[in-house]
């Protein structure tokens, strides 16, 4: 009975997860995969998820961006001097977030500029044209910060002019904060994801050690190498359009979703329909 109640609750909370919408039935099925003694722990794990629905994501982006714009305008810059930069490949989350923000905040009409971080030539030309302004990177979630910093550092070789740098993202991990700060990039975010709020992280005390060990074993059974996610970050942030690769494997499930079925499979975890 309790399982059904929690399944309904999970479906209500995470129903809008796009890669695979959650139903009460699938939530119940997910819980049932755990050994009986760990099922309540699995539910407790779900309680600690920081879920960013599309609405919430958009609100954070728009609100944080508004706060940033206000500061920039007060410092004497006009929106025409703002260069919004997407990071990572086309089709990845950053361009999607940028589009979401652009449309919701009417950035185009304000005369802001948009550049892909990988297009160094265009970035160079745009910065040269603007001269003095602000570079605003937009992304959905920053985990270790390594990927973001690597892309930004490469692009930095082509920087021209006097620019302040900012990052707008719904959620940023504690680990990334140092790296980003080291570069003097100021983050505008709705949520800083601390290690202490991740039940399976070694720094967290949400679960008892013994409980943590048991769940870690289940995670390793699903994915031996990345049981606790990339670099054992064990993050609990899930965005409506995908779960980061830093979440524990029990949330994502096995590749192709067998033998372990995930509650938040990444798009790359789902089986691909055969062509032809």
């Amino acid at each position, binding site marked *: 009975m309790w399982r059904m109640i929690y399944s309904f609750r999970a479906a209500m909370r995470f129903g809008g997860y796009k890669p695979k919408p959650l139903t009460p039935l699938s939530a119940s099925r997910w819980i049932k995969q755990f050994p009986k003694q760990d099922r309540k722990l699995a539910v407790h794990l779900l309680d600690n998820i920081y879920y960013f629905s599309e609405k919430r994501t958009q609100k954070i982006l728009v609100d944080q961006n508004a706060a940033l714009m206000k500061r920039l305008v007060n410092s004497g810059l006009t929106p025409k001097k703002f260069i919004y930069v997407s990071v990572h490949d086309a089709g990845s989350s950053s361009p999607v977030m940028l589009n979401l923000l652009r449309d919701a905040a009417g950035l185009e009409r304000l005369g802001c500029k948009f550049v892909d971080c990988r297009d160094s030539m265009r970035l160079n030309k745009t910065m040269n044209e603007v001269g003095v302004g602000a570079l605003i990177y937009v992304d959905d979630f920053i985990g270790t910060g390594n990927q973001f910093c690597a892309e930004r550092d490469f692009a*930095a070789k082509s920087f021209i002019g006097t620019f*302040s740098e900012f990052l707008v993202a719904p959620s940023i991990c504690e680990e990334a904060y140092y790296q980003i700060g080291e570069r003097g990039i100021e983050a505008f975010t709705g949520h800083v994801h601390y290690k202490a709020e991740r039940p399976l992280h070694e720094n967290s005390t949400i679960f008892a050690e013994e409980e943590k060990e048991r769940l870690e074993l289940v995670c390793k059974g699903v994915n031996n190498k990345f049981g606790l996610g990339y670099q054992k970050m064990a993050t609990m942030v899930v965005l409506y359009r995908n779960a980061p690769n830093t979440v524990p494997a029990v949330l994502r499930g096995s590749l192709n979703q067998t033998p372990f079925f995930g509650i938040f499979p990444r798009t790359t975890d789902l089986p691909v329909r055969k062509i032809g």
Partner: protein
Amino acid sequence: MPTLKPSQPPVPTIIPVGELRHLTPDEIKPSSNNPRHLFDPDQLLELKKNIGEHGVLVPITVYRAKGQTKFSILDGERRYRCVVELKREGRGGKGGAALTLPANVVEPPTKIAGLLYMFSIHNFREAWELMPTALSLKVVMEELEEHDNRALSKLTGLSDAQIERCKKLLTFPEEFQEMSLDPNPTTRIPSNFWIEALPVLDLATEQIPTISKLGRNRATHKLVDKYRDRKIKSVIHFRRIMEAYELTEEEPATRAKLMRTLEEFFLNPKTETRASFDEFVIDKKKVQNALGACEGFLAQLQRFKLTYTTDDEERANLRRALREVRAYCKSLEQALIGSDDPEVPHD
């Protein structure tokens, strides 16, 4: 402000106008080019030791970019890095106070001033891709309408050779320049490729009618495709083509054959640089002759059985001659280390 005569306007002060403040490292933003590996670690260690003992005595120069809460460094990156490291090590200032840096806060630099500062950073940096530098140099040349190498060298601190190389890169259309700005190192075309390919492209488009008809851009694409297809295994192999061209100067028949081979090289995606041009450069023959010379030299010396001689002067002469031989052999041996397909060096 001093004046020359009562009728003349005031002489502008030459003392840098800036507000002197004491900033903690947290209030400062490092250079956007992240010069983590810019400086000689030994020198930095010496400076750090000095700062640890006496603090920062000479103020750094910073500015605040519009909207930024932190101050960006214009001058004093090394002092800043030392203080950051000292802070990480848990060292404090005098009397246990927080470590701070005296800083002259000035107005943000103009685009050109910022660029020139960036060049000064690039000069410290090793393994820096040349293309971003070339693009920055282009802005300097356009904004200041200055194209003379010596003047540009003075402005930027780049060497004459570096400026020349940058200028060569800038002769290529943007679509090719972009290939050197590819963030993916596995698909990026190194800047050296364009510099080495330039004389070959000039030669082919000027002297081979079919390549001329093909057009310079399409000919360049053919070379890029070959490089990506590993048919040009190293960018320095372009030199082989130019060497072959020079060597055949007085042999019209061989020169004609070379040009046909070059045409084939451009038009046939399967042809490889060395396989195509090795026959024109007499490398092998030279090496074989050198091998023979080594063997003959050793055999002759051994035949003399010269382990001692009574004539002091002659002995000194022989020792000097042997030292010269040894030095030359050593330098030659060093030069020949490695293979013919070295890792493509980045600028």
